């Protein structure tokens, strides 16, 4: 679909906004609907749109599958790390009050970031793996 001019231009226009909107949903989740899970899915949708229009190879060149595989683990590790750091600071596991005055705020943001990274990576991984199976190029 790369040779389809209108589609290509509009996709290029749209992808930054989809990714930006994912971050809006991520950081605004404390005040409105949304959070890490939804943001991760939206972010993955932006990358998948790129893969659909410009081809799987182009997407894999932009974001290598190895990076995505690392992201799958990194998000969960970030989540666990927040818990362990709270433990080391003298609180209970995942007790954000140990982080000080605005601890709850910071803890929730960090944990949501972990969820975001894992969900986005898993969605992109699933898409890459399935599209890989029947690629024609």
């Amino acid at each position, binding site marked *: 679909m790369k040779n389809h001019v209108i589609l290509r231009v509009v996709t290029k226009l749209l992808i930054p906004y989809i990714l930006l*909107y994912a971050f809006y949903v991520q950081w605004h989740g404390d005040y409105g609907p949304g959070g890490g899970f939804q943001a991760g899915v939206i972010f993955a949708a932006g990358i998948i749109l790129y893969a659909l*229009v*410009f*081809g799987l190879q182009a997407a894999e060149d932009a974001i290598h599958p190895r990076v995505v595989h690392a992201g799958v683990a990194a998000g969960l590790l970030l989540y666990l790390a927040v818990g362990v750091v709270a433990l080391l600071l003298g609180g209970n596991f995942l007790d954000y009050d140990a982080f000080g005055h605005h601890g709850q705020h910071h803890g929730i943001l960090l944990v949501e970031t972990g969820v975001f990274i894992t969900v986005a990576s898993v969605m992109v991984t699933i898409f890459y793996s399935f599209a890989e199976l029947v690629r*024609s190029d």
Partner: protein
Amino acid sequence: MKAYLVVAIAGVLVTMAMALVRAARGPSVYDRILAVNSFGTVTVLFISVLGFLLGRPDFLDLALLYALLNFVGTIAILKYFKYGNLAAGED
């Protein structure tokens, strides 16, 4: 409850029903894609009007999400039908 919002939501619901019938009946795959795309657009309207009707304008975040994601779904279906896979790069 403002009367024009009620009119709007009634019109939007009727349109949703008609698009749904077209998506179910087909007959060709292109009719279905067209109906699904229209349905998505009308759903954006439904969510916006519902937000004002119930006095919850933060529902608009959801409408914005649909306005962006509806396009991705349509392109995916088109690509599937034209190329038989989702990986192809060249035409």
